């Protein structure tokens, strides 16, 4: 593992660790309002100041990071499993199944990702509790984000289906189900890992986009998207630079994932 990947791992561990320790680092929670310090600049009591309704920004960043960093991988896991099931199985079965799976992925991929997300999110209930909005947002990412991965897995499983060792196993009388689970799925693992790691930064960025557009996680629950919405009210960059902390954190985390991703791509290749 080279220096940059080690650094990326350390950064991710630090960010995840501090977000998991949010209850200890910011015991007052993300929703408590300090009415005597509305829109306050950074101070000893509020390290990143407070927002326009007096909530501690540092606490919100910690809790928001926890939500984004725990649920984006969960959504990535869901989309990877769906891709494995749909793409892997269709590729293994081949013929009409593979063509049908490809037609469905073509349909999904003909729509720009952000447009698809916004349209689908709009059709879900918008006036829901914060917890439900978190689940709906990330569930939607997981349910819609499988298509590109399914395409790759369909092709990989298709090539495995015609490979010598699978043909030999089939000729030896191995049942189809066992052949799939014992010989095909283990060979799909590197691609599955790569697709999982690719999806995480994509989902983090997508949630941020949805949040800024007002279609993400509902208030008062924080997420990177809702925290970045604060940038909308800025008049100049130098005015309140501490408001950029969530953005810097997001860029650092996504960059760290990109470094780890390059390793996964190498393994998949």
């Amino acid at each position: 593992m080279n220096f940059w990947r080690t650094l990326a791992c350390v950064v991710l561990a630090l960010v995840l660790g501090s977000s998991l320790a949010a209850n200890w680092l910011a015991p007052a929670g993300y929703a408590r309002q300090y009415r005597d310090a509305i829109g306050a600049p950074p101070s000893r009591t509020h390290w990143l100041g407070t927002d326009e309704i007096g909530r501690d920004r540092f606490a919100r960043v910690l809790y928001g990071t926890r939500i984004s960093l725990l649920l984006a991988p969960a959504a990535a896991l869901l989309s990877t499993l769906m891709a494995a099931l749909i793409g892997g199985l269709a590729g293994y079965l081949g013929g009409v199944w593979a063509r049908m799976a490809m037609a469905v992925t073509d349909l999904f991929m003909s729509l720009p990702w952000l447009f698809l997300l916004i349209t689908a999110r709009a059709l879900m209930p918008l006036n829901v509790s914060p917890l439900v909005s978190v689940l709906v947002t990330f569930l939607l990412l997981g349910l819609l984000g499988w298509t590109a991965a399914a395409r790759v897995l369909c092709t990989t499983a298709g090539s495995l289906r015609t490979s010598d060792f699978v043909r030999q196993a089939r000729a030896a009388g191995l049942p189809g189900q066992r052949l799939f689970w014992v010989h095909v799925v283990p060979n799909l693992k590197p691609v599955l890992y790569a697709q999982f790691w690719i999806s995480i930064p994509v989902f983090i960025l997508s949630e941020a986009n949805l949040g800024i557009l007002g279609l993400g996680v509902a208030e008062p629950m924080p997420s990177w998207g809702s925290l970045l919405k604060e940038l909308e009210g800025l008049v100049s960059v130098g005015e309140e630079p501490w408001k950029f902390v969530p953005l810097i954190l997001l860029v650092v985390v996504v960059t760290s994932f990109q470094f780890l991703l390059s390793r996964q791509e190498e393994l998949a290749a």
Partner: protein
Amino acid sequence: MRSLRWKIGGHALTLLATVLLGGLFSATLVRLAPGFDVDERELDPHLNAQSVQALRDARHQDRNVLQFYFSYLTRAAHGDLGTSLALGQPVGTLLRDRAPLTLQLLGLGLGLAWLLTLTMALSAAWLRLSVYDTLTTVVSGTFLCLPAAVLALLSVLWNVPGSLAIALIVFPHTYRYARNLLVKAYSRPHIITARAKGLGEARILFWHVVPVVTPQLLAVAGVSVSLAVGAAIPVEALCGLAGIGQLAWQAALARDLPLLVNITILVTLVTLLANSGADVIGHAMRGQEA
């Protein structure tokens, strides 16, 4: 020529089928969405029981998705795309009014994105300096890690045109492919030989590199249209530009379902046309070379 005609015919059929399926998919989502059956006019205390029943009957045929979609297609074939629930205007008029701004934004954004992509990718391939390569990778990687909506917000903050925001959203995606294609093309043995024999850089580029990479770059160009259309939503919404992207965002927030169905079909059509167009031109170019 015959294979090109087949190619165009195949693409046209795929395009038609995908657009129709996309419309059906969108209509199904609309039909299944909570609140589809609700009409707030029923709450009007001035309406009597018969009027309320008449309103319900008017919506009755929409309950069957296929019937709903078929009636929508029939109306659309006669130029009636329905009426926006939130804005109270015909969808056709709304789309016609807003299309020029979005087209201008996309055209300028894509032009700038490709100018940046080709300038940086060509210079990376020509210079072959690891420092420059690292620098361009870091620049494009940074933009890749920024959410599109943040770039739109920053463009408002710095008072730069929305087309630049679109360019900066699209360029990191296209740069990565273009750079790899050009570096690979420049490392081909016949180009190394041409360089060793003292052939000019311009001649090498236009005679030996461009014909090789153009079909693949065209495919990336097709995909970049889809990226730009997606980017137009946050850019128009957050920069206050009254285009189709902003309309899509407003329709989403207001759950304006007739408008969403039409925009979905339009967006599918535009992205598929761009991808199919790029594929057909690439195929024609490869055919000419052969």
